[in-house]
């Protein structure tokens, strides 16, 4: 199908301000009377505040006031608190001080005497699970079905797990399908591996600074979130106010990657502080604080057993995961990992068992492909190992297992909307010249050896049921109201192009309204889970369809005939039988105001969200309103799929590798925004490289101190740690459940890269797999020198 806007590049309305520096992020705002807050954070991994002596601090000139845990609502464990009297990790905020400037606030912070009583702490899930092991919180050590509880294994259970034997310890999460035993019986090769993936910090470029003030009973918050409308209910709840009393501005968000999906504690802090002080409060978050409060990936310690038939098809998978939730986390990663395995390899039978354990490390949350990408890093190299044993080409073993549109997913073995993984593998194989390149595998060039790898990534990539809102004003402008957050994918705008497509209008006449709840934005999904493209092309399509119907109705009412007699083009509605009977969109908008009712927004559908209702109320009478909830059918899980190919050169003397070539192929339905898709594939790749071999989360287990609070210790990839150039491609087959044929892609774009690099490393090492992330030069050197590795069995806390 040929489109006017979909599949075409365009200039997003915010990009010029990004290159000129005019884009305003939360910390760029200044308001009169603003005071500056700084945090006092916990020096110990777990403790109880016995006493706080503020006398010296508050007596300092320029100090305005203090906000303590007693001034904010308590949180329900294990949710992080805005401020706490029982810090559960080094860096947990205890109190905030505001002053006329930051220096004074910091000077005051160092004058505060906090008396803390140390409590037992742990930095390792398995340490917490041992009999009598320390619990990260006084309420318990595991978080199951939204409740804290306590689980300790027996010594024998723990030892079995650490020894890589089939785990027997209690695992509260369990699901399965198929006959596992039969699956393993049918297998020609059965692999059994223990694994570890490090949960590392998001470290978004923009630290999550927040400005808040109160005006006319409303709380204004300037924050940094991935989502826009989706944040409003959670932030209002955190602030203890009604949604209508919140003005939320997040026009720009300097990176989120899962860490800024909905509201988070420090987003609400200045609201409380500003109310207490009756002055605007700016809370600048530093890089180190961003490490503390900015979330990290859930870490895995696990065991996996997989059976492969002679042709390479996966017959059975038994997966067991101990999750490191840090001091907070929901622990959905394990189940997501299981889901990813279930779709990517289509096993006949599968079981997932998991236990989410809290540790006294930074809070964890979603991070780009939470669960799916950890398991991609583990399963894909294992798949290669099986292929090696079976004498099958790595690309071929993926082809024989690849999901198509009849694929089944998750515990319930539900359907997918569509899937074309074979096409993705074949396209990539051809573009990458896999067959020829594979011959170079293991080739030596001095101290360097070539490794070739292919990896796959998956994430569910679409939701439904959200709202779209479009408006034509009497000046003829088409206002595309986007409640989608501006997290850097440009989906806030690219999804609105579905509406422009329906309305068959020129892009130049469109105005995208976004980034500020005062601009009347509709209810939106969260900008995470790779879902926005699928979800909001639908919602915008629906709103535009509503508008199209109304345009035709207005034309019929005004010019005579039936609505069905009319069509639109060039921002005009015209009678298909007599094209001289036509109205411009501007005229339609003016007419809609006269007509009122559902045309002008005076009336609205019942099924739209209250956020959208308020938006429509705010817009009523300003033009023609198109608004609708997405009620289009969805026949199953919406898969976002990606395949990556990597050629690396590993230096056997230094343990360092260079990625010579990299290709990513997206299988995400119709391409909506080619440059944006390439951006996601490249960005995902860079994240994938980081996870595969660089990024870390290091704690001293003896005292709970984090080693990597800054960028140079966290080691996100730089220009020189990624390939010279990245190639991207897309399968570009429409998904039937999206009116534009599109699905999401952001997260699988990372998992496939992690997997491809780790597979290439394994290939270069003749098939050795490390079963962990990251794989760093020291591990490779130790392996090659036939030395033991320095980390203990299943230790997560390594460099």
């Amino acid at each position, binding site marked *: 199908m040929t489109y006017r806007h979909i599949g075409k590049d365009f200039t997003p309305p915010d990009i010029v301000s990004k290159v000129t520096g005019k884009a305003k992020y939360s910390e760029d705002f200044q308001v009169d009377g603003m005071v500056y807050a700084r945090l006092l954070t916990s*020096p110990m991994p777990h403790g109880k505040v016995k006493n706080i002596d503020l006398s010296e601090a508050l007596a300092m000139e320029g100090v305005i006031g203090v906000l303590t845990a007693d001034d904010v609502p308590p949180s329900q464990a294990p949710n992080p608190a805005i401020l706490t009297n029982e810090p559960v990790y080094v860096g947990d905020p205890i109190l905030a001080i505001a002053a006329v400037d930051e220096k004074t606030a910091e000077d005051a912070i160092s004058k505060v005497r906090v008396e*803390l009583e*140390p409590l037992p702490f742990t930095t390792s899930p398995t340490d917490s699970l041992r009999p009598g092991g320390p619990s990260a919180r006084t309420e318990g050590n595991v978080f199951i079905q939204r409740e804290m509880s306590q689980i300790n294994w027996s010594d024998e259970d723990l030892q079995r797990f650490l020894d890589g034997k089939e785990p027997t310890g209690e695992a509260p999460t369990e699901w399965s399908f198929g006959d596992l035993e039969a699956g393993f019986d049918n297998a020609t090769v059965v692999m059994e591996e223990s694994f570890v993936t490090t949960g590392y910090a998001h470290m978004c470029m923009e630290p999550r600074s927040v400005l808040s003030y109160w005006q006319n009973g409303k709380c204004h918050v300037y924050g940094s979130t991935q989502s826009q409308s989706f944040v409003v209910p959670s932030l209002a709840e955190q602030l203890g106010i009604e949604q209508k009393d919140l003005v939320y501005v997040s026009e720009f968000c300097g990176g989120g990657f899962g860490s800024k999906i909905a509201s988070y504690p420090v987003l609400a802090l200045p609201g409380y502080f500003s109310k207490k002080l009756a002055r605007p409060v700016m809370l600048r978050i530093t890089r180190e604080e961003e490490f503390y409060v900015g979330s990290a990936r859930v870490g895995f310690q696990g065991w996996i057993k997989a059976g492969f038939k002679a042709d390479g098809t996966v017959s059975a998978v038994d997966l067991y995961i101990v999750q490191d939730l840090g001091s907070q986390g929901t622990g959905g990663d394990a189940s997501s990992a299981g889901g990813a395995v279930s779709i990517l390899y289509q096993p006949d039978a599968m079981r997932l068992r998991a236990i989410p354990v809290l540790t006294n490390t930074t809070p964890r949350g979603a991070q780009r492909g939470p669960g799916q990408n950890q398991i991609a890093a583990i399963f894909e190299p294992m798949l290669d190992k099986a292929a090696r044993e079976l004498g099958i080409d790595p690309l071929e073993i993926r082809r024989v297992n690849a999901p198509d549109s009849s694929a089944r997913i998750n515990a319930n073995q539900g359907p997918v909307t569509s899937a074309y993984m074979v096409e993705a593998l074949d396209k990539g194989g051809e573009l990458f010249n896999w067959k020829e390149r594979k011959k170079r595998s293991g080739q030596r060039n001095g101290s360097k050896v070539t490794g070739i790898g292919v990896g796959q990534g998956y994430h569910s990539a679409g939701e439904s049921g959200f709202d779209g809102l479009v408006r034509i004003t009497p000046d003829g402008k088409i206002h595309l109201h986007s409640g989608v957050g501006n997290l850097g994918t440009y989906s806030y705008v690219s999804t609105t192009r579905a509406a422009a497509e329906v309305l068959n209008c020129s892009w130049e006449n469109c105005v995208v309204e976004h980034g500020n709840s005062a601009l009347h934005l509709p209810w939106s999904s969260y900008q995470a889970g790779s879902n926005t493209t699928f979800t909001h092309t639908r919602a915008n399509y629906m709103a535009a369809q509503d508008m199209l119907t109304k345009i035709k109705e207005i034309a019929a009412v005004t010019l005579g005939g039936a609505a069905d007699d009319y069509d639109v083009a060039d921002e005009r509605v015209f009678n298909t039988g007599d094209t001289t009977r036509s109205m411009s969109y501007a005229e339609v908008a003016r007419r809609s105001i006269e007509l009122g009712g559902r045309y002008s927004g005076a009336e609205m559908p019942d099924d739209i969200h209250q956020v959208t209702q308020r938006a429509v109320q705010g817009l009523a009478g300003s033009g023609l309103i198109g608004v609708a909830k997405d009620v289009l059918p969805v026949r199953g899980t919406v898969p976002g799929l990606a395949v990556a190919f990597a050629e690396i050169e590993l230096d056997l003397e230094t343990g360092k590798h260079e990625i010579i070539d990299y290709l990513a192929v997206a299988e995400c339905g119709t391409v909506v925004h080619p440059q944006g898709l390439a951006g996601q594939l490249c960005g995902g790749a860079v994240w994938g490289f980081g996870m595969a071999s660089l990024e870390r989360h290091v704690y001293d287990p003896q005292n709970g101190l984090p080693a990597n609070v800054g960028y140079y210790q966290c080691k996100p990839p730089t220009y020189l740690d990624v390939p010279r150039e990245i190639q991207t491609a897309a399968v570009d087959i429409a998904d039937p459940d999206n009116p534009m044929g599109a699905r999401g892609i952001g997260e699988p774009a990372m998992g496939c890269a992690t997997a491809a690099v780790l597979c290439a490393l394994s290939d270069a090492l003749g098939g050795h797999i490390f079963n962990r992330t990251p794989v760093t030069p020291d591990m490779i050197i130790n392996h090659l020198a036939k030395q033991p590795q320095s980390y203990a069995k299943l230790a997560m806390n390594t460099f």
Partner: protein
Amino acid sequence: MEIVQHKNDIWGQEVLLGVSWDLLWLVVVASFAVIIVHLLVMALRKRAEQPATEGTRLNRHAKSDRIFHWVMAISTLVLLFTGILPIIGVKFGWLTIHWISGIVLTASVLFHIVRALFWQDPLSMWVAPKDLREPFDSSQKPGKYSLAQKGMHLAMTLVVLVVIGSGLVMLSLIDTPFWTRGAWLGEGALGWVFVLHGLSTLALIALSALHIYFGVRPEKLFYTRSMIKGWISEPELEAHHDPARWMPDKIV
């Protein structure tokens, strides 16, 4: 002036770090002051006639005791210098010399204790109540050791035992060719160990200064000679000791 220094432990809580080295200057100044006062007092006093060094030579210190004394003395001085010089800014690789000297001192002290307790007369060094009359009663002369010597020995014993005890704890916390450092002591307790080591070091500086000063005073020089050569003369014995309480063997 602070007596001890504090630091923040790994969790930012205040713990002891060690003695305040400002005390070092206090101790040095105080020791010199004592010495100067003593010098002045002695200069004003009428100089007593020195007993003759001729005559029968009497055995005061056996060769083995003398060797041990000087081994202890040298190791203590080495320990003091290697310990103190870096603190006052003289930089060199002191630690290895320091702990090896510490082991030498410890071994000597242990040997001395065992030998003195089981093979010698420990009571000859013990301060008995009647000894306390010694300074006030010129007629009462000591046996082998004067009250001053006994007092010095007792003080040295206490201080050296503390310095050795704390030093051994510290030794267990550094790497040597024989073991890798332990981590069995919490930071609070470690601070106490450093305080004890520091205080005993300061006391040792003062005691050593006095000991050396008295060792080189003209009227006491014969003791030093006896610690080098082993003997005192009969007139010296008669002038300073009560032969009834201590009659050493003649050297043949």
